């Protein structure tokens, strides 16, 4: 029975650079999916699953929190439906996402 490499995965330190190598029959499919995923703007979901340091890519592949189920009033209503304090909380969450983005944009901080 001939042996074929199904999937190989290696992480090496090459003079301070992190080098990840994948090979084998399954790797070809994975590489294609990564490439297509990146083109479609999916943010490298598969790449994140492959990487041991998922936190590195938490921004581009952040798991979406479940969206709230909207009532008919929420779907159709147009009046004020949140207090100022709730709005401030919303801004606080936005502040966190801005911080995340600014950190990810700065290569020195990765």
């Amino acid at each position, binding site marked *: 029975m001939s042996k074929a490499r199904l999937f190989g995965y290696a992480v090496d330190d090459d003079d301070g650079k992190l080098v990840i190598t994948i090979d084998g029959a399954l790797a070809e499919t994975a590489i294609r999916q990564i490439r297509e995923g990146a083109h479609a703007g999916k943010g490298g979901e598969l790449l994140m699953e492959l990487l041991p340091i998922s936190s590195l890519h938490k921004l581009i592949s952040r798991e*979406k929190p479940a969206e709230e189920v*909207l009532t008919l009033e*929420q779907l159709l209503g*147009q009046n004020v439906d949140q207090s100022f304090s709730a*709005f401030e909380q*919303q801004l606080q969450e*936005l502040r966190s*996402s*801005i911080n995340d983005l600014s950190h990810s944009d700065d290569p020195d901080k990765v």
Partner: protein
Amino acid sequence: MLRLSREDSVLLLTCRGHLQRQEEERLQGLVREDVNWAYIAWRAENNRTIPLLEYHLRRLGAFDVLPAPVKAYVERWTVMSRLRSALEFRNLGRILDALDQEGIPCFLVKGPDLALLYYPEPLLRPMTDVDIMIRAADAWRTQEVMFALGFRHGIFDPSSGGWTDDRKPLGQEMFRDTYALPVFVHIEKVEAPFPADALPAKLRHRHVKAYIGSNNVMHIPIFVDVHFNLSVGIDEEDIWSGVRLANALGRVVRVHSPTGAVWFLAARLYHEAFLYNSLRLLMLGDLHCVLHNQINDIDWAEVAAIAYKYEMRPALYYVLSQVRHLFGIDIPTGFLDLIRPDQKEIPLQHDWGDIVPKLFSIPSLHRVELA
């Protein structure tokens, strides 16, 4: 004397498209002071004036004073609103062409009329939906035209991108109880300008409805309100009075008369605020825009006649008096005296007093003294 806070003053100054030089200087002065920008953004969002706030602060070189999260929120809100407006205008063009081909007369009213004719930029004024006016007799044919264009009746869920079809046959009771056909919806799909998590859910669910899928495609519903009246019980001849032609969207279109826009906007602002608790500084800004551009074309006698005919005198008196006082618009005092509610007549039913405290949710009390 009701003294507005700095925040409310910023809101009042930025609810319209045009500012006088001294108003710009006033705004620049306020911006340099300690103001709560989060509060301003919250109120501006609910008054639908966020893009106008952004526009004035940016052109006056003051946008960078906003704290980062408020600035990001205002920027993203504005981009979403402008994108929606562009898609709305694209759809409006094909609706107008299709109605024209079918020989169905219509005119632009509310959002598209105001945004295209009176604001400094058409994309500046946010439009929750696109409003056009037809004659009631053309309702059935118009519905068929809209269906043929791919519009549907139903409910779009921006949290999931889901759609629930709700095709409604048009019945005679509709003309008695409402003033528009059931809303028509078409879902546009475009590349999202932001990832979904860069836009707070409330913004996507409530203010600029949109669903952003994992492939970065944004589903944005275009709502079209086809009116056959402006409110229940208004005579068709009063709706169509003064309708004129204008150049817009690269074609000649019928538009609402400035006189009609003035009485309708003033009455709507007042009644939406007191009857439905719907506070819209944007409508005050709309009124200012129409009067700023067309004050000499307003037929004040017609506005007064409408005010008496439909018992709109309190609404028109309080709103237009404040427009004169707050914005320095030269509304004739003789006209205001003519429509002013009289203490010696039977009290008018829809007289809730001044509009300004309500618009800013200020719990103000008149100081009362005995004679």
